[in-house]
């Protein structure tokens, strides 16, 4: 029923577009899709800015780097902590100008260029009706019988795969290669991206899948399915943070600033849990959907700064490859 309304909204928006200034926002495809937070955020921001917000989707950072200073992007959203070093070195980004003291991240955040808008812990998701004794620590995961099969993502093509690589490296340090070797027999396969892996899990092909502690929230809220849980490990969980940033050379600096302010607003933040299925970066726990409180939460957050991550990445990748190629 809502499509005619949306269509009407779109027509109105495109008529208004003739005069209204345009804020161009680069975002990953999932973000701006019909089922992501994009449409709600577009409507919400246009309400207050008297402007036309246009999403351009695709591989955000590669595209920006290709375009360089001639980019028409004013703002980007959906960058990941693991690409910020590369992004920062490009010199394309300005400061976000927001007060980050009220963030509700499990880690310290003092970056004045990249502004968090949501986050989640990496975790292994399983079906609690099938897996009787889920592991409660990484060690327990490695000790599980080899017929428990896990699907992970490739750290060379997937952000979550890379996050797992850094997670294992943080927990096991010099012993990481050995840890991977112990995990190897349980790894059913390594996929290019998250979707294939999660599809294999929901199809019953794998017992566990590398995903997020917030993944069960989708099943609980959208499908009223309580069978999916995330295993919580004593050693702590790696945190993936998604970021927004302002392009330094934007021709709409006021609008871009207003958007950065909007990112931390309660309106924006309360859209995140049930559209991006993750935790908002600045929202009191009391304002989260009740079902989010059912989710398991790790005691400890693990996070490598962009410099630390960059320093260990190549070595960790080599260890991963050696251990899994046996």
């Amino acid at each position: 029923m809502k499509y005619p309304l949306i269509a009407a909204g779109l027509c109105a928006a495109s008529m208004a577009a003739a005069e209204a200034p345009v804020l161009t926002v680069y975002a990953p495809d999932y973000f701006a899709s019909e089922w992501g937070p994009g449409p709600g955020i577009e409507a919400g921001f246009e309400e207050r800015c008297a402007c036309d917000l246009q999403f351009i989707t695709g591989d955000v950072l590669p595209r920006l780097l290709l375009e360089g200073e001639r980019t028409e992007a004013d703002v980007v959203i959906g960058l990941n902590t693991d690409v910020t070093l590369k992004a920062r070195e490009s010199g394309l980004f300005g400061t976000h100008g927001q007060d980050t003291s009220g963030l509700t991240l499990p880690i310290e955040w003092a970056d004045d260029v990249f502004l968090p808008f949501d986050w989640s812990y990496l975790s292994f998701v399983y079906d609690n009706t099938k897996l009787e004794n889920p592991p409660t620590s990484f060690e327990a995961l490695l000790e599980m019988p080899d017929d428990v099969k896990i699907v992970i993502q490739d750290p060379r093509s997937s952000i979550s795969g890379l996050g797992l690589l850094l997670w294992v490296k943080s927990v096991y340090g010099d012993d990481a290669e050995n840890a991977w070797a112990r995990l190897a027999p349980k790894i059913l396969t390594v996929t290019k991206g998250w979707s294939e892996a999660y599809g294999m899990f929901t199809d019953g092909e794998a017992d566990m899948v590398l995903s997020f502690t917030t993944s069960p929230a989708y099943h609980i809220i959208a499908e009223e399915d309580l069978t999916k849980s995330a295993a919580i490990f004593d050693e702590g969980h790696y945190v993936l943070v998604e970021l927004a940033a302002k392009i330094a050379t934007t021709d709409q600096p006021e609008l871009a600033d207003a958007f950065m302010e909007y990112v931390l607003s309660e309106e924006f933040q309360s859209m995140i849990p049930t559209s991006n299925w993750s935790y908002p970066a600045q929202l009191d726990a009391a304002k989260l959907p009740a079902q989010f409180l059912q989710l398991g939460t790790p005691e400890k957050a693990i996070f490598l700064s962009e410099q630390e991550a960059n320093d260990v990445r190549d070595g960790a990748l080599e260890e991963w490859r050696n251990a899994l190629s046996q």
Partner: protein
Amino acid sequence: MAKRLVPIKPVDGLGAVSAALILLLTLGTLAAVVTRAEGVSALRPADWAALRFTLWQAFLSASLSVLLAVPVARALARRQFFGRSALITLLGAPFILPVIVAVLGLLAVFGRSGILSTMLGWVGLPPVHIYGLHGVVLAHVFFNIPLATRLILQGWLAIPAERFRLAASLGFDNADIQRVLEWPMLRAVVPGIFMVIFLLCMTSFAVVLALGGGPKATTLELAIYQAFRFDFDLGKAALLAVIQFGLCAVVAVIAWRVATPAGMGAGLDRTVERWDTSNPVLRAQDFTVLVFATLFLLTPLVVIFLKGAGAVWTLPDVVWWSAFRSVLVALGSAALAISLSLSLALLAVKLGQKRTAGFVEGIGYLTIAASPLVVGTGLFIMIFPFARPSDLALPVTAVVNAAMSLPFALRALSPALRDIENDYGRLADSLGLSGWSRLRLLILPRMRRPLGFAAGLAAALSMGDLGVIALFADPESATLPLQMFRLMTAYRMGDAAGAALVLLALSLCLFWIFDRGGRVDADT
């Protein structure tokens, strides 16, 4: 070679334009990427390992696909039965499936909890372990047997009925026919088909990862992806792409040297009747081959159908709009693919046996060796200074998809065209048929079958291809595969399965309509 000293005609001009366009899309985009590279980084040992694995799995996959396709094509060529035409269409489906759909379909059959493992469980056997080199090869064989079968079947159907008639009157048995008629035909068509499949498997990437079971199964294409997405090292991506081109060129030259023209001669297009295959052993053999091929190729499709059927009716409107958009892109892409491949094939035939002919045809195969990522990025670099890439999302998709299906179209058209010129060229010359009238009166009518097949293939491939969309995507004009992918990333696996079914059904429909159009009036 002095038989046709005619001035350059518009038809040849088109061929040259097509060749130029393909060069621009393949080598041009590569050059564009190189211009943005900051130095070249050396290859790591892992890259060499990836190279070895790439070649080895491609070789195994292509060999098996061709070997298994020969008996299937033979059975289809020499048997008539109810539903044969529908079966031929359906058997083509795996080739046009989007990778992610096919992988989940295959796993539902061959995976740990798949049908096969379940059936093994009933008799107390352990489940199949599909992950590894054998899984990669299995998936590639699943994708490519349909293509190999169709192309080999065309070779079979191109043997004129009169040859079999003559063979029968000479008292040939099945073994004689194999030696005298079928073997020379296979010698002519198989090397080219092997090459095409080899190249396809070389640039495969998501399948290899998903079924390869880990980093042992890494292809060059993954290394290119990594260089782009994670390292943004355009120099390295370009270097890897050059290596990929080089390898493909070597394979192409080998295939070209192995192939020998069959020289079957002309016929009167009578229905082929076989007098040599009525013995019960051969019947049983063909029957078994067809049953196994059907089971292997169609079971995963049935699974995809069952998984998606429930969700199709509740799919959101946007999915149907993107389906509509995808059909338009597919039609444009098919028209373009036919124009490109026909003009290239005409030019190549016109140039006769000379080396330049091989060169012109070789250009047509370049796109298969091109990395979609490099093509997409190169196009982006070329277009960006002049236009908004997202405004051109759909046209660019159509053009790139057309270029990507060119090798298959060419594979179908060029042997047919060569035969026509060999068989009827002199007659047409003596009648003064040239240029457009030669095309209209001689070539197009005789090429209906391969043209229909090529157009259907191009349209269907274009439906399923995500191709270069990553850099050109426009959120308002998503194609169906992209929409399906979005559903998956939004956890909506059920709706995604519904979208996959729509995609499969539309691709098959497009393919069937074109292919059928090409076979109207034909008895086979």
